[in-house]
């Protein structure tokens, strides 16, 4: 940890000169928070399933001298920077705020409806171990609509660490869809924090699809702050080998009449580890809340591990909430039935895996992407995703 604080102190001038005043103005407080919080250990409840320290074990290089192109940030965006992602709340958020130099801005003015998704493809490429700190802010004003297609990939068999902090502001009656597709290598460490605030009548959909990963921790915090806001969190993780995927979500019902629906599905094969912790908080003022949270897991070997922890915390009385999780193995009777019909054991397993993830993919409203992800999942289950390393997320709208 000290090494990152030292780096920050020593390279402060270089960092600042290749960044924006807006980001620079927040670094000092972030560094203080990071020094105080330290890396989360497994004793920290929210991080008990992910060994964050191991993600920082390799000696990463950082590129701090990339010149920034001219960028003017609208006031509505600038004034919100760092307001959701509280540096005092999380060490990764603090570290990211301390070091991030670039800011990706998506700003959709009131009433504007984007038909085509905005693509943000991140391709990690390096010959030496590399750390990258990414920062995004998305401001979608009243009645506007947008969807974001984020693709996270690695090109080289190298140690990578990415921290990413995303702040999303969904205006009144606005609609935001985020599709986050990860296809990184076994040596990639991904620590992502997403914060969304949904105003009255707004809608926020987040889809996370972990096709391949090394060590991944996705934190997704959604606050339903205006009456009648809604959110849907959909997740699929297909993990094998030594892969580790941890999704930690918080849905904060802070206003009346809001709806949330959450469904995460994991298929864990070989020695993979999956973790899901989903907290739904229904505050006292959040009457007429409707919330449904499900985590279902398919564990394909005796060595794969799943930790699941759905949590419902209700302080209002007029609510309809349900939550639950399941961990199951391959249905042996179904496998035998399929084999009796002539289907080989491997293909039978494949069909069961596909079937298991089908319902969460069916919920994706953006049809071209839904088909594309089904296909991606099938190829993944067939074990031939590596043939497609250079294929970017080009399918959906081309």
């Amino acid at each position, binding site marked *: 940890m000290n090494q990152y604080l030292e780096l920050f102190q020593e390279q402060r001038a270089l960092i600042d000169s290749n960044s924006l005043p807006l980001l620079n103005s927040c670094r000092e407080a972030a560094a203080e928070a990071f020094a105080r919080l330290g890396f989360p250990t497994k004793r920290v409840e929210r991080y008990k399933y992910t060994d964050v320290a191991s993600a920082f074990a390799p000696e990463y290089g950082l590129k701090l001298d990339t010149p920034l192109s001219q960028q003017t940030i609208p006031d509505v965006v600038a004034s919100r920077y760092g307001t959701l992602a509280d540096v005092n709340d999380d060490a990764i958020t603090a570290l990211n705020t301390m070091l991030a130099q670039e800011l990706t801005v998506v700003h959709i003015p009131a009433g504007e409806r984007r038909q085509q998704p905005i693509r943000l493809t991140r391709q990690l490429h390096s010959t030496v171990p590399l750390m990258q700190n990414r920062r995004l802010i998305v401001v979608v004003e009243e009645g506007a609509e947008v969807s974001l297609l984020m693709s996270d990939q690695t090109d080289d068999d190298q140690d990578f660490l990415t921290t990413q902090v995303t702040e999303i502001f969904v205006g009144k009656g606005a609609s935001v869809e985020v599709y986050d597709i990860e296809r990184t290598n076994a040596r990639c460490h991904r620590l992502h924090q997403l914060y969304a605030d949904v105003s009255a009548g707004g809608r926020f959909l987040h889809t996370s699809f972990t096709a391949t990963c090394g060590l991944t921790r996705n934190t997704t915090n959604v606050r339903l702050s205006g009456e009648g806001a809604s959110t849907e969190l959909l997740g699929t993780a297909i993990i094998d080998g030594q892969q580790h995927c941890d999704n930690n979500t918080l849905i904060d019902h802070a206003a009346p009449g809001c709806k949330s629906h959450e469904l995460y599905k994991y298929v864990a094969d070989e020695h993979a580890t999956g973790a899901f912790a989903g907290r739904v908080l229904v505050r006292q003022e959040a009457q007429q809340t409707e919330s449904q949270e499900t985590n279902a897991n398919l564990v394909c070997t005796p060595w794969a591990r799943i930790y699941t922890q759905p949590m419902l915390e209700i302080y209002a009385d007029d609510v309809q909430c349900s939550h639950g999780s399941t961990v199951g193995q391959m249905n042996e009777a*179904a496998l*035998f039935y399929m084999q009796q*019909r*002539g289907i080989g054991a491997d293909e039978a397993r494949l069909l*069961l895996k596909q079937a298991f993830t089908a319902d969460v993919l069916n919920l994706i409203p953006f049809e071209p992407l839904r088909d594309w992800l089904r296909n991606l999942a099938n190829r993944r289950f067939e074990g031939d995703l590596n043939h497609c390393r250079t294929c970017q997320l080009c399918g959906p709208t081309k």
Partner: protein
Amino acid sequence: MLQIRNLHASVGGKEILKGIDLTVKPGEIHALMGLNGAGKSTLSYVMAGHPAYTVTEGSVTYRGKDLLTMSPDERAHEGIFLSFQQPVEIPGVMMFNFMRAAINAKRKASGQEPIGASEFRTLMQEKRKLVGLDSRLANRGVNEGFSGGERKRNEIFQMAMLEPSLAILDETDSGLDVDALRIVGEGFNRLRKEDTSAIVITHYQRLLDYIRPDIVHVLIDGRIVKTGGPELATEIEQRGFDWIKETL
């Protein structure tokens, strides 16, 4: 065609089959009758290669090949089809994909090209009509939400699609009302090819009114204790099994 010799099999450490001998020739229909717990389903599972059942003695030869060393899918490719007593539900696996995978696996095993999409669709439509399953079948999960009768019809439909040389029907008649029984029975006759052999496991005469057996066997406590012609089934229908036990 099928030769079972002195077959002993156990499950969970308990011996269930205690020396079965059975020979089935091409085109023959055998009925296998016996009380609950006699070992009828065990015999069908053992023939299909269910991993929970262990053969401790004896042999099963099918068309000159040793069946017992084959995996369940290889046995299916050889032409063995089991209509399950309790067909399992496989949520999310669509009948269309399931059936196509089954047909293509069989084709592959015999060196044939995969079936064309439209040819497959036509075939599926033709066969499902014969057992009275409607057009939604293709897009339903395997047995997902099917009624008992639908499941049994689905078994016969699959048999028709796969054209086995030996069909084992394990209590395909149980839980069916008279209409469903007729559909299944007539469906089987229409969908069966001439040289298809069958082992029909049942408690009752009523399915045998449709599927007329050449030979009837009685299985008690893991052994075939009596073998006769079709009249044996009628006699059992009238007198039950006790008189057979008494003669032992």
